Every structure is written in structure tokens, then in C-alpha cells.
């Protein structure tokens, strides 16, 4: 089962939103402010990208709008946390509920739908293939003809790693997380650096949401994020903000999500396969944190 091409394709598809959201989260992790509002940012990205792609006819405009909308809430989040010194967990948690309420309200009041948006004329994100890969039939089947955000997210793993560990900005960012006073002494405004990390994180969450709605499902539903934002938060904690570990963890959770529905229904009722990703998160987080023994390693 492990090497079935369909299973591997599903793993990539399902890992991508987790990967994007947690890659964005690594910026904020390094600035020592975990992004707890990923759930809401993904939801707004999913909704906005669907509506805007449909009305403008271009999925790329939808993508841009998703990023903008998520950044809008990122600004609010940053305002509360940085300017008003509010607790990052408290504000993030409340923002999730606020966004969920807002989206449901807009959907029911202005779009006249109960909980789902579907449209046959929705323009999908383009699919991409690499002709180099089609030389090997197996790789061709697994890696080609994916929605564009999937390969992009894999490239972003490297980009994020470079930004965090190789550029001056990444250096400032990690300094802002470890010792903001030192950064201020060196002449950088730590709040500005952290603000940029909020924006980057929000943009990535917007992309992750867009992948859910216009990337492969081609519909929007109110409960489509269903805890993925919190799984992404767990991934960032697990990986301690290292992009390669983030990739590894995302693929693991993607595989967990892809594997569960493949078990025949007589052996496992659907509720258990829906439960599986959350159970896997619980178990993996516990095992990894227990082995780490509660030490915080930056």
C-alpha cells in the first residue's frame, strides 16, 4: 500500500496545506511568537480565494486576494500582540473564533449558502509537470500533474531555510526571538522584524487555505480546515522551526490523513479514519516531546 501511486499522490496533496501553514509558522516561531491563528487565516484564505477566483475568473488573482485577506488579519494579530502587548495565545485563539464566525456570517447573509460553496465554473489553479521527471514512469505518476502550489511549497522549504538561516533578515529574526534587547542595541527595531514575520506567516496560511479550496477540492466548506491550523502549530513545535524537519513532519501527517480512508469501511468505520490524523498528532507530539524531555532547544 505504501508505494501505491494514488496513496503517494494523496499524501503530497494533503501534506501541502500543512507544509505551507507550518513553513509560515517557522518565521514566527523563530521570533518566539507562535502563530495560533493559523486555523482562522487558512479558513479566510480558502474562502476568499474561492470567491475571488470565481468572480474574477483568474485563480492567480484569487491567490493574491487570499494572501491579502490573511495578511489583513495578520496585521490585526500583530497590532494586538506587538503594539498592545496582549498574550499571543489568547489573541490567536479569539481570532480563530472571530474569523470562523465572520466567514459563516458572510456565507449565510451575503452569499445565501448554508455551509458550502460549489461552482462548476470555478477556475482551478494550473497543474504543472516537469518533463525531466517523465523519464521515470513511477516518478512521473507520483510527482507530475499536480496543482501548482504543491511543487511551489516544496521549493519554499528551501527558500524559507535560506531566509531564516542565511540572510540578514533571518539573523535579525532569530535575534528578535532570543534577545530583542540585543537586537535593539544593534540598531534594529525588533517589533518591525517580528511584524514582518507576522505578515510572512499570514501569507503562507493564506496560500495554504487557497490550496484547500481552489487547489484540489474545488469547493469551499465551513469546516474544511478542521484543525489543520493546530496540526500545523504542532508541526512547528515538533520541528523546532527547522524547515527540513517541518517538511518531514508535514509528510508524515499528510500520510496519516491519506492512509486512513484507504482502510476498507468494514474494518474501520469512517469516524475512526476521520479521527486518525488527530490521534496521530497527539501521539507523535507526545512521543517527540517526551524524548526531548521538556528541554527547549532553539
Amino acid at each position, binding site marked *: 500500500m505504501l508505494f501505491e501511486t494514488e496513496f503517494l499522490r494523496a499524501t503530497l496533496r494533503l501534506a501541502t496545506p500543512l507544509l505551507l501553514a507550518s513553513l509560515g509558522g517557522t518565521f514566527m516561531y523563530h521570533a518566539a511568537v507562535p502563530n495560533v491563528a493559523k486555523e482562522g487565516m487558512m479558513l479566510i484564505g480558502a474562502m476568499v480565494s474561492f470567491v475571488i477566483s470565481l468572480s474574477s475568473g483568474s485563480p492567480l488573482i484569487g491567490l493574491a486576494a487570499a494572501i491579502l485577506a490573511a495578511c489583513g488579519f495578520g496585521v490585526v494579530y500583530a497590532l494586538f500582540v506587538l503594539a498592545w502587548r496582549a498574550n499571543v495565545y489568547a489573541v490567536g485563539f479569539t481570532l480563530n473564533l472571530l474569523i470562523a464566525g465572520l466567514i459563516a456570517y458572510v456565507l449565510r447573509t451575503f452569499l445565501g449558502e448554508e455551509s458550502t460553496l460549489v461552482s462548476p465554473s470555478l477556475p482551478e489553479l494550473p497543474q504543472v509537470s516537469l518533463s525531466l521527471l517523465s523519464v521515470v514512469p513511477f516518478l512521473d505518476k507520483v510527482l507530475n500533474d499536480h496543482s501548482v502550489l504543491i511543487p511551489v511549497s516544496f521549493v519554499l522549504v528551501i527558500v524559507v531555510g535560506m531566509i531564516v538561516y542565511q540572510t540578514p533578515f533571518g539573523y535579525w529574526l532569530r535575534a528578535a526571538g532570543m534577545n530583542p534587547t540585543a537586537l535593539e542595541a544593534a540598531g534594529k527595531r525588533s517589533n518591525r522584524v517580528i511584524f514582518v514575520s507576522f505578515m510572512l506567516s499570514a501569507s503562507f496560511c493564506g496560500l495554504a487555505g487557497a490550496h484547500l479550496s481552489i487547489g484540489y477540492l474545488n469547493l469551499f466548506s465551513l469546516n474544511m480546515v478542521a484543525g489543520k491550523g493546530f496540526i500545523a502549530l504542532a508541526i512547528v513545535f515538533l520541528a523546532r522551526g527547522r524547515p527540513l524537519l517541518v517538511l518531514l513532519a508535514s509528510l508524515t501527517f499528510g500520510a496519516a490523513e491519506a492512509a486512513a480512508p484507504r482502510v476498507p469501511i468494514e474494518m474501520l468505520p469512517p469516524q475512526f479514519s476521520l479521527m486518525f490524523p488527530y490521534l496521530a498528532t*497527539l501521539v507523535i507530539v507526545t512521543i517527540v516531546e517526551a524524548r526531548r524531555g521538556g528541554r527547549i532547544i532553539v
Partner: protein
Amino acid sequence: MQLSVQQCGDEVDKTIDKEQTMLSMTTTYRAVLHQFLRFAGLIGLVLLLAFSILLFQGHSPADILSAVYSSTLASDFRIANTLNRLVLMTLVGLTAAVPFSAGIWNVGGEGQITVGAFAAALVGFGLSGLAVQIHVALAVLTAMLAGALWAAIPAVLRLRFHANEIVTTIMMNYIAIQLTDYLANYPFRALNSPSAETPRVLETAQFAKLISLSNLNTGIFVAIAAFIFVCYLMRKSAVGYEWRTLGKNPLFARYGGVQSAQRQFLAMCVGGALAGLVGSILVLGIQRRFIVGIAGGLGFTGALIALVAVNSVLMVLVIATIFALIQSGVLGMEGRLGVAVELSDILQSIIILLIIVREAIWSWFARLAAHIRRAGGKDLHAV
């Protein structure tokens, strides 16, 4: 001495703080009144926002006000429903507030309520031939135990294995919802039932309705008793003191000999038990059976309340009252005007966000006022 605007603002803040401290020392009631007016102003601001959104959507002000009034306080029946909501909301607020006060997060109220509700239903229809009081008590206790157990799992994972409790309690929510969904769909599904629900609980295991057709039932006496007990626990007992110390300064608490892991574990279990109690009231008093999705977001609202009422039982009560009125009002508007019920989620979150940063907002206002005063003064000099 030259001061930047920022520094001037800080100076003003300091003076205001000093004035407030003096005020509270001399005339406490004026300080309380001051706080109350600010708080009321904040709530009023949010309600005004809601009102203008609804006006913008084309509802007439008279319709809005009459719908809100008639669904919250117009008759015994409505008051009873609002009161019931208020009591449940207070309990779910405490569900998260007790662990918060001990410095551990519990955002798993939703799952704990669900599990508690299912346990109550199981005892309610599964056991027969018991006396009324015993059956009800048994069902309630089982529900509280189930809720406490469901909270104990993430507590152990946090305290023994260092797993982040925000992540684990949220995961436990999803697990609880799917697990009970399965149980209500397959092994314990009521015969010939069109939807996923358990059989009705027996007469002996029901809380009687206090006002016919309303949701208010004798379960609220249990709830009030639990509320008083938790008040005592948090404010007057040694355990409550240790919780507060842990929440405010864990190092100091440990230095003072508090068994931190034990106490935080206890706080989580108390929170979970309260959630289980809420679940049992939902089943035994209102729905009379377990239905899928019975918690309906109540657990998240509880966490929201607790965010701004960590160490104050009174604050939990105040916010629960406001939320109960908002929910009843919005529900009435949904029935009469077709307003989407999610409006209450929006208003509640905005209220909480504003309360979280109220100090910053007030000092910003104070700074603005000082700025305007200064600018005014300059103009006078110029003249």
C-alpha cells in the same frame, strides 16, 4: 526638557495611574464606578457595531429591538431560556478558567462536554429500576468523571511528557466528537431513528423542567451548587491559593513548596468535571438523549470567557450574562429577521478582544486627550 510625544504619553499614563491609585485608596466606590462605566462603554460600543451592521443590511431599528427584547426578556419562557444559557455559560467559563488560573490551558471544553454528555446518556438509558435521585446522581457523577478523565489525558501528556496542552486539548476535541459520533451511529443508536442519536434517557434520570417548554430545568440547582463550590475552591481554599500562585509565578510557587504538577493536574480534572456536568445537564435536562454535535461550540465559548476572567469568578459571571443575552437576542433575530446566528460568535470574540487590550485602549484615549489638550493650549498661546 524636551520630551517626544511617546514619552509625554507615558508621563500622562503615569500621572493617570497615580491618580487612579489614590482614588481607589480614598474612595473605592468611585473607582469601581469608573471601571464599570468603562466596561459598559466597551460593551455598548460592540452592540452599537452590531446594530449598525444590521441597519446596513436593511433591517429597521424597531424590528431589531423588538426581536431582541422579545427573545431575551419578554416572557417567563424567554427569561427561563436566557437564564439557562447563563448558567451553562458560567460553568463552561469555569471549565477553562480553573485550569487557566493554575497556569495550564484547557481549550478542550468542547470534547469534555461531548464525552460527559455521552456518559450521562449511557447511564440514563442503560440502567433501569433505580430511584429517581439515585439514577440522576449516578448519571451526573459518571458524566463528571468522564469529563475529568478526558481532561486528565492532555494534563498527563503535558505534565509528564511535556506535550503542549493547547495542541493536545484541541486534538482531544476532535477525537471526542468523532468517537461519540461513531458510538451514537453504531453501537448505541436508537432503533428506527432517522438521525444519529441514542435512545431517550429514562424518566428516572431526567432533570424536571422548571418552566414548561423552556430549557430551564432542575439541573441548574446542581450547576449553582457546583459554581459555589468552585468559588470556594478558587477564592478561599489552600488549593485555590496554590493555583493562583502557580498561574502568576510558577517559580515562586515551587519555591514555596507547591506540588506544581499535582495541583495543575487537579485543576484540569476539576475543569473537565465541570464540562462533564454541563454535558449531563444538556442531556438529562434539555435534549433528553445524546445527539451528535450536542456541545455546539459551547466549550469554545467557555475558553473565550476564561481568557479575560482568569482569576475572577465574578468576571466569569458578568461575561456569561452578557454572552447569554447576546445569544438569546441573536437567536430571536434569526427566527424573526433571518439574521445568521453566527453574529453572536462575532460579537463575543470582538468583546473578548477589546477586553484583552482594554488597558491599551484606555491609555491610547488618555494620550489622545492629552495631545488634544496640549494642542489646544498651544493655540491659546498663539492667540
